[in-house]
């Protein structure tokens, strides 16, 4: 029996977890809120810049140019354009994994799950890709690449699938399990490539790094100089993944089931959908996206994996901000992945003129903006919670005006 007084003012139906409630607010769609969010985040970060004594406008202009996005302006000089092209290649190089880890979070969100495990799934992808890429040296290039990409995606799917399986069978909260799987993945990776580790470099015994992947397993570069870390074809894979995500979610039987489970698991069950099986499936798809991101980074421009990379990389976590800001849609994820990649690249030590703003500080600026975005995007949930509480107490709080 449900007790109306005790069950509280549950707003949406099926709002069982914070994640599903959050995802409920984020599905609203629309451009206004994400845009305002970004503007406010930039404004607040601008205050921080001003507080350090620098000029916010000058700094933002420098970051913008550092990201290479000025390449699209027709009026810049040929010289600037050459530089801008180089910068833009780097930005798009970062956009590639961010799109994919963003999708890994977004897809889970649509099923009412909160995948914090993008980092671990990405790491598993890089480890498998570097292992496959550096082994089987006699293999034909294309086959080798396909093998590495597929195995890395499967590994990511398996890794995330563990969290889905635990949720389906024991009800273990996916937030907790994916976080723990992150640590597990990272430390397994570190162990494998650390000094004396089973996959540590065969030649350089004193460096904690993997073997290099073989030349033929590298992804072709289609824009820029392959020697200067040009843009590899993996970028198109990420763009294709956006399309796959959209079709899968909005046009496929799987997507119908995923959305039904995300909106209302009880009704989904009534429609004959196995909620438990869906949790596993959804997490596996998420993991495949993240694992693919790892594979493209390894095969596209990193070519080797050091323990240091594993520990400092945080694309997986950035993916959460990307998905939140992108409202868990394909287009939104693409746009916010580009935004974050531009920020990361524009504030990097290499690209920002120290005379304008200290790049050391600027890197933190990205983190500040990222943090603000997550905060503001999550804010509606807080606001609604507070508002709901207020409304429930309103009647209680009002006193008789003159009865006393």
């Amino acid at each position, binding site marked *: *029996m449900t*007790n*109306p*007084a*005790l069950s509280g*003012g549950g707003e*949406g*139906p*099926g709002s069982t977890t914070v994640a599903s409630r959050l995802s*409920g607010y984020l*599905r609203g769609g629309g451009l206004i809120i994400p845009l305002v969010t970004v503007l406010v985040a930039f404004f607040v970060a601008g205050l921080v810049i001003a507080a350090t004594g620098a000029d916010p406008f000058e700094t933002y202009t420098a970051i913008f140019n550092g990201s290479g996005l000025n390449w699209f302006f027709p009026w810049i000089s040929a010289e600037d354009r050459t530089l801008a092209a180089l910068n833009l290649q780097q930005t798009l190089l970062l956009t590639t994994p961010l799109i994919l880890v963003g999708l890994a979070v977004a897809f889970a969100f649509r099923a009412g799950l909160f995948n914090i495990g993008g980092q671990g799934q990405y790491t598993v992808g890089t480890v498998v890709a570097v292992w496959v890429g550096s082994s089987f040296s006699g293999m034909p290039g294309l086959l080798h690449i396909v093998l590495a990409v597929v195995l890395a995606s499967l590994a990511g799917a398996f890794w995330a699938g563990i969290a889905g399986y635990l949720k389906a069978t024991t009800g273990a909260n996916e937030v907790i399990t994916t976080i723990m799987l992150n640590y597990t993945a990272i430390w397994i990776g570190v162990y494998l490539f650390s000094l004396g580790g089973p996959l540590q470099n065969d030649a350089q015994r004193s460096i904690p790094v993997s073997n290099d992947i073989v030349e033929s397993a590298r992804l072709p570069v289609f824009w820029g100089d392959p020697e200067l870390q040009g843009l590899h074809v993996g970028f198109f894979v990420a763009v294709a993944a956006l399309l796959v995500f959209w*079709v899968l979610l*909005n*046009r*496929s*039987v*799987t*997507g*119908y089931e995923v*959305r*039904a489970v995300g*909106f*209302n698991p*009880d*009704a*989904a*069950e*009534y*429609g*004959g959908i*196995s909620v438990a099986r869906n949790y596993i499936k959804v997490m596996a798809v998420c993991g495949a996206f993240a694992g693919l991101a790892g594979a493209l980074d390894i095969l596209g421009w990193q070519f080797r994996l050091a323990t240091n990379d594993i520990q400092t990389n945080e694309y997986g976590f950035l993916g959460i901000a990307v998905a939140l800001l992108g409202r868990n849609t394909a287009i939104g994820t693409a746009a916010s992945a580009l935004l974050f990649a531009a920020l990361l690249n524009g504030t990097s030590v290499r690209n920002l003129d120290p005379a304008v703003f200290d790049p050391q500080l600027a890197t933190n600026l990205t983190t500040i903006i990222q943090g603000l975005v997550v905060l503001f995007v999550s804010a509606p949930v807080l606001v609604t919670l507070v508002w709901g509480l207020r409304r*429930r*107490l*309103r*009647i*209680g*709080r*009002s*006193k*008789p*005006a*003159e*009865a*006393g």
Partner: protein
Amino acid sequence: MSATPLALELEGVTKRFGALVANDRVDFDLRRGEVHALLGENGAGKSTLMNVLYGLHQPDEGEIRLRGERVTIHSPRQAIGLRIGMVHQHFMLIPVMTVAENVVLASEPRKGALLDVTAAERRVRELSERFGLAVDPRARVEDVGVGQQQRVEILRVLHRGADVLILDEPTAVLTAQETAELFKVLRSLTAEGVSVIFISHKLREVLEIADRVTVLRRGKKVGTVDTEGATEASLAKLMVGRDVLFRLDKEAGRAGDPLLAVEDLEVLDERELPAVRGLSLEVRGGEIVGLAGVDGNGQSELVEAIAGLREPVAGRIRVAGRDITGTGVRGALAAGLGHIAEDRHRRGLVLDFTLAENLALRGYKREARFGLLSPKRMKERARPLLEEYDVRGGRPDATASSLSGGNQQKCVIAREIAEEPKVLLAAQPTRGLDVGAIEFVHRRLLEQRAAGRAVLLVSLELEEIRALADRVLVIYDGRIVAELPPDASDEEIGVAMTGGRRAAAGAA
């Protein structure tokens, strides 16, 4: 007209929300010490009118006169100051606090900075004696039943000195027994000079408790009538705007082969305790079997087991001869089972889905081509269904949450019937619906019966079972304790529902 002074008068109240006119020049008056019912279909503007009175909305036109004086009410706080109190459908109590604490909340008797608990409890006792509202001031709210919680709400309003009391669908959450007690309380309140506005869409209750009834339809006042001399049919006609058939014309049944057979079924509830204990029943094609019983006697678990949502621990379920025990929802669907779920918000619909998507919930797999679903085809399939079932506001791409309860239920029924089931499980199919929608649902169920399908109707409304069923089975404590004809007396069915029959049979 009457010598009784007016406690309250609303004159020409109009409230617009954009293009929607929720209240259109509504007049309403409340005499001192009367119960005045406000009746109307869902969305007729009852709640808006009361929210205007309670200061939650500002009227666009019209005026409010309280005890003869013109007032404008800007907030609930001000309304309370004017001695208007409202008890909402969903209680606003703090579960961990005691009854006394909840009653005095926000206008506490104090001893210095502290709450004077003894004074609070004394106050609650005074009030409950004066108005005949028995409660234990020291009990914690979470430990008392829903009926008691409602009393706490009423006490709270009285504590603040209200003499105009608005009750928003107060009986929706109550059992018959609790309702009877509430009515006793209301009578003693009015005897003390409190005036009550009673919002409801249950005709019988209105006739029982109210002195006068004002009927709203589509935001307009249709009329105010004395309940003396009014009948359910006359009120329903005012409410819906046409004659409503309470006695449904039912052709004699032509029961065919048994299509649903449940044998020695045992099902556990959420807490893993036995809820259905060795239950057997049979429903033949072309008949409606009504399952009557007090809520919580295993009905929900039985329905979920048959529908494949809950795995039974023992026993068999056959649909059209096919054993579907343990085959889940898909197995039940494949065997030809339709299921109107008892909670359309929790089970029956995905509220954030469009109507087209909701209508595909049971058959989406069939619609798929190469694992892909075409939204266009879904909409094309939905459109005629929405039309046939008269779902108002039912564009295929509207979300289910945008519809009223009655129209949502029509969607559920449209979907289940469109699957052409051999057996239709209808669990509380009219809960929360107004008379017009109820009539619609009942007609559809009878159509299914005429089409030779087996219908198992589970309902808490005895009237509904009587009106529709060919046979009445009474469930008590997870077992069928009696089979009766639908014209058995209330008493006979009532005794069986409370387990009396078995005891009586045992004694005899």
